[in-house]
């Protein structure tokens, strides 16, 4: 299972001649490839890294705010049309991205969003899946707490931000991790939304770079390793939440 990662790492430590020798460990390990990826003037990886980070963080922040707000409203308020609204939102999970990218692209062109961060981000600013998740969790927040705050005369938005949100931090953490990972790895839409290399996200950049690198496999493997790095760190830190998150979504869906 892990061999591909091992082989990637070893290949990234070899130079252009060692890469063609079939040896498990590099005879003279070198960090030149990493130096090239991070510091060469021809390498755009630092820019792509930055783009991916901006996109993943902004979308995740937006998803956290809106999804928990929607989940809270749907779980704790009574109003006409509640059920229909919930069903409408959940039904969008059935629409595959493959179908939506073409109209999204037409939209992005019409509004001049092509090659902008907003262009990459706008389709993912709210996630129907997250609404489903947060609604489940919001139901567990005690009504008394919310009512007490209302009696105290606190505003509704304030109650949501200062009283409700702190109570659902585990769910927020799960949603944040999933959304960050999903956005970091996203390929199809960023591939379409951006045509200028300096706006590429890391996966699009890596695909493009690898397509042009020809036989420089040591550089391709270094690029692959670099694009995985943040996720491996995220995974090692949040292992429990990730596994719990996968299990939760699976069993409740």
């Amino acid at each position, binding site marked *: *299972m892990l061999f*591909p990662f091992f*082989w990637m790492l070893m290949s990234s430590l070899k130079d252009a001649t060692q890469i063609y020798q079939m040896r498990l460990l590099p005879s003279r390990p070198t960090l030149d490839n990493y130096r090239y990826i991070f510091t060469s003037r021809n390498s755009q990886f630092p820019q792509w890294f930055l783009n991916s980070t901006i996109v993943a963080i902004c979308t995740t922040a937006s998803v956290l705010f809106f999804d928990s*707000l929607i989940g809270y*409203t749907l779980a704790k308020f009574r109003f006409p049309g509640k059920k229909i609204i919930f069903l409408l939102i959940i039904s969008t999970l059935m629409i595959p991205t493959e179908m939506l990218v073409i109209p999204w692209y037409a939209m992005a062109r019409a509004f001049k969003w092509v090659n902008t961060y907003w262009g990459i981000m706008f389709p993912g600013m709210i996630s129907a899946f997250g609404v489903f998740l947060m609604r489940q969790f919001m139901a567990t927040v005690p009504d008394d707490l919310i009512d007490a705050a209302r009696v105290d005369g606190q505003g509704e938005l304030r109650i949501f931000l200062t009283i409700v949100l702190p109570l659902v931090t585990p769910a927020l953490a799960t949603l944040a991790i999933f959304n960050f990972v999903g956005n970091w790895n996203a*390929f199809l839409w960023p591939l379409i939304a951006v045509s200028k290399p300096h706006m590429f996200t890391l996966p699009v950049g890596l695909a493009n770079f690898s397509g042009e690198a020809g036989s420089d496999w040591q550089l391709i493997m270094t690029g692959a390793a670099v694009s995985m790095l943040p996720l491996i760190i995220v995974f090692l830190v949040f292992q429990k939440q990730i596994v719990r998150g*996968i299990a939760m979504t*699976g069993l409740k869906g």
Partner: protein
Amino acid sequence: MTLAAKRAATAYAFLAVPLVFFICVRFAPMLYMMAMSLTDWGLLRKTLHFVGLANYAAVLADPVFLQALANTAKYAVFGAPAVIVVSLCVALLLDRVPRGKGLFRLVYVLPYITPVVAVSWVWRWMFQSPPLGVINAMLVAVGLPAAAFLNSPTQALPSILAVNVWVELGYCTTIFLAGIQTIPADIVEAARIDGASGRQVLGKIILPLLLPVTLFLTVIEGIQFLRIFTQVYNMSMQAMGGPLNSTKSAALYIYQKAFTNFEMGLAASASLVLFAIILVVTIAQMRLFDRKLDY
């Protein structure tokens, strides 16, 4: 204003932006897509004409699209069951491991959370012909002939499929493990006391209780494989779905029609065909499961 009306007003205010979002970025595009599939829409074209079902006829008569559909069917029909069977076995084995679960977890979840693009290129490198590819080097080392893998029209699709099985394994195994943990220990205990063998416990208790999870995963994985795109894009020469279209999936066909050929109308109708297939397969699976779960 009554208190209830006030609360409702707050709720609508909270939902206003999200509703606009879902209408503008999900529903409207879908309707737009349906409408556009009936026109000769192209990015390079200035005027728009209604062409009825001509796009659907053209797409369904296109041998490349039919091959892409056949390939997509192969990915789904072989890929989804393969992931389910392998991950079920892995989960059953891991459940018995007394220690080091965390380490194993890292091992099987890692492929699932790393970028598919990166993973695809790593495998593409390993699949290279001799003397470059490490898999071929291993084959030769044990006395087997080298294989063409991604360069062969017959082996390329199974190779990509195998990589995707490896990727999806983490997700399914995690869910199976969670499912196994929800099985009450006293049921298994009681069966053991009554003299049930390990195999009987597995066949008569554990597997039937895992049926809902299995069915859920079958639907999810079926959809995953029907939508396969990134792997094919990154593991075929020039992202063309080759050799000879042998790996091209429906999603890649749609992408090429829309963004390489700019034939948006054709791409729209092709994507609706794919959507219809996903929908029908999903509903059929759910129906089937409802019946099986009844007893």
